[in-house]
């Protein structure tokens, strides 16, 4: 099998869409790589669930007692224009449709755009976080994840078998193998990682995939 993309590269692919003034919410885990590779020529406002809008780059060595953190507890720098609000106002912003992009991790995504990312099967506990509102109400909902689970199971499926976080909400899926969009209940491959063929991608995907009309090799140019 050809090589898979690193999280940094996937983050760069995701970030290409961000434009001046866009508000972007990054889920914990892999999506936070998008904060490490901010577009330098556009002014993007990063939002974090606890009421933080417009935070700066991730801090390498935070001083003791540093309070400014992302939802995933990474310490971050302040930024001019940054604002604080309560959790209810923070989700007014989300639910009101002011978030342009949300980038979320997933356990499963399916061809209808349904998202499952809060509970593994067989478990009786789980974690929804802010995902239900973000996934439903952001202008663009992107999933960023490894194409297959640690056990090699496909995470892109025909119909999710894991409990759903939100229905019909995912626009695009960015994995270490491909960039796909959900369209009319189909998974269309827009870009593939260098060396990968559509057949190889289909081989590790449990939903039928089809090439988008403009399918191309993923590049950062």
């Amino acid at each position, binding site marked *: 099998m050809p090589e898979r993309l690193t999280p940094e590269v996937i983050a760069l692919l995701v970030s290409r869409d961000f434009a001046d003034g866009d508000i972007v919410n990054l889920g914990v885990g892999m999506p936070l790589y998008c904060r490490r590779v901010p577009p330098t020529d556009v002014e993007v406002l990063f939002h974090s669930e606890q009421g933080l809008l417009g935070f700066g780059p991730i801090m390498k060595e935070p001083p003791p007692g540093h309070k400014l953190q992302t939802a995933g507890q990474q310490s971050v720098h302040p930024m001019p224009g940054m604002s604080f609000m309560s959790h209810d106002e923070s*989700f007014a912003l989300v639910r009101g449709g002011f978030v342009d992009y949300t980038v979320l991790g997933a356990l499963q995504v399916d061809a209808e755009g349904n998202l499952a990312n809060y509970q593994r099967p067989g478990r009786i*506990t789980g974690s929804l976080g802010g995902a239900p509102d973000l996934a439903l109400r952001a202008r663009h909902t992107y999933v960023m994840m490894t194409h297959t689970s640690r056990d090699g199971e496909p995470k892109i499926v025909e119909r999710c078998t894991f409990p759903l976080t939100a229905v019909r909400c995912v626009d695009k899926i960015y994995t270490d193998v491909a960039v796909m969009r959900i369209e009319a209940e189909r998974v269309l491959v827009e870009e593939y990682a260098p060396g990968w063929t559509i057949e190889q991608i289909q081989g590790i995907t449990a939903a039928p995939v089809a090439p988008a009309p403009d399918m191309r090799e993923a590049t950062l140019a």
Partner: protein
Amino acid sequence: MIDKVVSSFDEAVADIPSGASMHVGGFGGPADWPAYLIAATARTGIDELTISCCNMAGVGPEAFAKMIVRMTEGASPVGWNVAPDHVTVALLLERGQVRKGITTFSTAMRGAMKSAFESMVEQGRTELELTGQGTLSERIRAARAGIPAFYTPAGADTPWAEGREVREIEGVRCVLETALHADFSLVRAHAADRQGNLIWDHPSSFNATMAGAATMTIAEVDQIVPLGDLKPAEIEIPGAFVNRVVLRPSTPMTSWREAH
């Protein structure tokens, strides 16, 4: 004269009875948690609590201490999670004081460890009501704002919002959610005055949302300033929503078991 300042955490929580419902602020780092109020609640020994808290995925201090002992090959456990500065609601869970938790995070972030909540749920000792942050924060805000119920799109046609009334409003399927009021709200703020006006120096998260959404709101603060020091436009939560204010010790205490 209005004076909401209470001199000790033990006094501030003394009237919380077993079986009470409580909103507990807290989200990520130590600056978000009403840690001394939680520690004092643990010391009262009350149980059968219903706690709503955004993040109940913490590892309890006992489990954490054991892990530290293991990791340090038997050295005395003085881990960060034991001093009250780093207490979270996991302390109450681990000690079996919680009958039900309403939360958005119940599983530990890191795969290998189990949260105190998970252990209690698996043992059948604690009930879990899982919801999303938008719904939880809006339900609590609704309690403060006197809105008995509202419709929201989050959760429609998902298992976690099963059983709610569903209604299509302007083409969007919405679920009916009700105000979540509590007997007590324990919140953390940066500074207060004697009237209970509160300000924050970082995002207030659920701490501001929960202030006023209970019969009795108790705020744990880093500073108490003279009345008039807080500017009218800077006050995030007016004292109207706050009943008691307690000042954190200037020198952090070393064990949550220590009376204060």
